[in-house]
């Protein structure tokens, strides 16, 4: 952490940059429950794919004392083991991402404009005018070339980042620096809104589940994965190492209960039990476990059958001789934008379901 702070100080000292005023303190958060404050803190923490240190440290501090073993694997995943007490206990792995969508600087031109690559499924055309924040606090504004016809979603080459520099030399960022989107956390009734929220709410679910879990029947490995946004790279490595009997991926389900949405999935109607995503058909046995848990806890649920998105399930399912893998989707509106939106009731229901699974007599 020290190294990073020094870097930030250097950048501030030498270069003009959009880094003032400082990020606002956690104001008015008193109105939030402690759990929602945790979600807020997680959401506001910097952590694009590959730069998850700060989020991981926050999560590690939160789960201190809640697990029997806590470790960080070589890939950077944070893994907490809560031992089970059951006679017929199974090894269960549950994953939630630490990282968030963002961008990475790939080129700096002579005038100090940055080209960037996507970290995760950010849609280029939604970016112009939006902002991102680098680890050293520098703010970048997204722009788009006006020459030529960059009027489709696909034409990602036509976008650039303005970090307030006037040359490559005085640019306060370097090639390879990553940035997250900028979007303040907000709450409106049950709706929570913020950048990185779809991932961080899932991280908060794992933390809160560990906190509330009185007694586990099974050995539960909570895996806070890194690099989930860029191909679910951390999850497969963890599954290969842990060799679980069951893996449950906490996924983000694109809720489209808005005008002209093309699926029937909604916020507040319970988590989605995934039939499939783009890269995996969920294992039937894992689906059954989740369905049974919703019955036990009498929580609502939805089924996601659209082959959309590719979560962390596919590489887990493919690990070694195969892992029985299911996925529980937190419905999210406006995925991969600075304003991801989730419903606090869905969050709470996932905690109920996970708790039920972990404490189930048999699986």
């Amino acid at each position, binding site marked *: 952490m020290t190294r990073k702070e020094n870097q930030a100080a250097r950048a501030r000292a030498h270069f003009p940059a959009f880094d003032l005023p400082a990020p606002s303190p956690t104001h008015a958060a008193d109105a939030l429950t402690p759990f929602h404050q945790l979600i807020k803190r997680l959401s506001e923490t910097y952590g694009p794919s590959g730069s998850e240190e700060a989020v991981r440290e926050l999560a590690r501090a939160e789960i201190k004392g809640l697990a029997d073993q806590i470790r960080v694997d070589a890939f950077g995943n944070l893994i907490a083991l809560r031992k089970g007490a059951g006679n017929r206990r199974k090894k269960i792995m549950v994953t939630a991402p630490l990282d968030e969508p963002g961008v990475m600087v790939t080129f700096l031109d002579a005038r100090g404009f940055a080209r960037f690559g996507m970290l995760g499924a950010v849609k280029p055309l939604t970016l112009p005018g939006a902002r991102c924040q680098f680890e050293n606090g520098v703010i970048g504004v997204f722009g788009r070339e006006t020459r030529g016809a960059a009027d489709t979603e696909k034409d990602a080459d036509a976008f650039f980042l303005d970090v307030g520099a006037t040359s490559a030399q005085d640019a306060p960022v370097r090639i390879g620096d990553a940035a997250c989107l900028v979007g303040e956390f907000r709450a409106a009734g049950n709706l929570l809104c913020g950048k990185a929220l779809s991932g961080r709410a899932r991280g908060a679910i794992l933390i809160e589940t560990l906190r509330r879990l009185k007694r586990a029947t099974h050995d539960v490995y909570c895996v806070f994965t890194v690099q989930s946004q860029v191909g679910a790279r951390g999850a497969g490595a963890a599954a290969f190492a842990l060799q679980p009997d069951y893996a449950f991926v906490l996924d983000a389900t694109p809720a489209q209960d808005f005008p002209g949405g093309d699926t029937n999935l909604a916020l507040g109607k319970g988590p989605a039990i995934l039939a499939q995503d783009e890269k995996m058909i969920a294992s039937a046995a894992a689906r059954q476990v989740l369905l049974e848990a919703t019955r036990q806890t009498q929580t609502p649920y939805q*089924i996601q059958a659209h082959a959309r998105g590719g979560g962390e399930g596919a590489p887990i399912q493919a690990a070694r001789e195969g892992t029985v893998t299911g996925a529980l989707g937190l419905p999210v509106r406006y995925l991969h934008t600075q304003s991801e939106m989730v419903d606090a009731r869905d969050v709470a229901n996932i905690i109920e379901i996970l708790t039920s699974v972990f404490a189930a007599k048999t699986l």
Partner: protein
Amino acid sequence: MPTLTDTLAKLSAAPGVSGHENAVRALLVREFQKLADTVEITPLGSVIGILRAQTTRGPRAARPKSSAAPRLLVEAHMDQIGLIVTDIQDGFIRFEEIGYWDSRVLPSQNVLVHGKKTLPGVIGARPPHVLAAAERKRPLALAELFIDLGLSDARARELVSVGDVITLDRALLSLQNEMVASQALDNRAGLAALLEFLRHMQDTPRAWDIYAVANVNEEDSPLYVGAQTAAYAIQPHIAICLDVTHARQVGLSDDALPEAGQGPGIARGANVHPFVFDKLRQAARRRALPHQITVYGSDTETNAWIMQVTGDGIPTGLVEIPLRYMHSAVETIALSDIARAAELLQEFAAQLNADDARALRGETFVRAPARRARAKRRR
């Protein structure tokens, strides 16, 4: 003994959409139990039938618990492309594809919706009378199609859930010249060849253990997750994939394509180990079996592609049944190609000896099959 047509009819009638292979798997477990020493199921649901090495002709020996013999994996994928319910609107079923469809063949098909019970339905679309000229000229998009079960909305919701799968309702049809047509002959044809091969091996002396594998999740999974995990579990010395391939047909007249009825294809290329190819071709020649050589620069788009790089690498081969009209409701093959593929593999398996395994693997020869005991616990 069942005829090949019987076997194929039974196999193609058992639904087995990728990731939802229960019915076809149950059928295969029963068949494997008749033909193998041991039957195991992987965590993801692939079925493994093990026939231990036995160097003498005659009845099967008592089931040995373990073996030091080299392992030959012969696999065919059991899953088929299908559809999945994504929404119910006014009693009509909206759906997406599982696997790669030519969605132009879907309108006006009979289907089976596998809900609380299996429900027959039809795929409807707006009649041409009400279409604008431009609409008539373009194919129907998947989002415009729906399934009519004849049910009210409430009753449809009672019997069908989002996530239920759908198959075409299409029985095996016999054409002239011992050719047959049906849905899902990709890869029920391969499965039929696999069973026929196992049958032939019952009293064929063999120096290698035979692992016959029916794999899940070939059609849908970019990772070929079924084949990958089964191969990882078995760690074979040679793996052979049995799958279908495009046959020459109207509009697809590339001379490089094999012709249905002229014998199985033996694939050659980067995905195929030269030793395996040579042995397969020798086997075909020795038995004077009609066969065709198919050539692939790199990816064969079969399970052979992933098996080749599983673990520390597996020498892999590919035997193909030529099939016309791939991924349609009328996939068409010649029964003789299935029979000859089975004979080819029988000859191939019978020839393998301990030296072959050593030649392929050098000093890394002796390895215990990994963790199969645990895999067996499942289901």
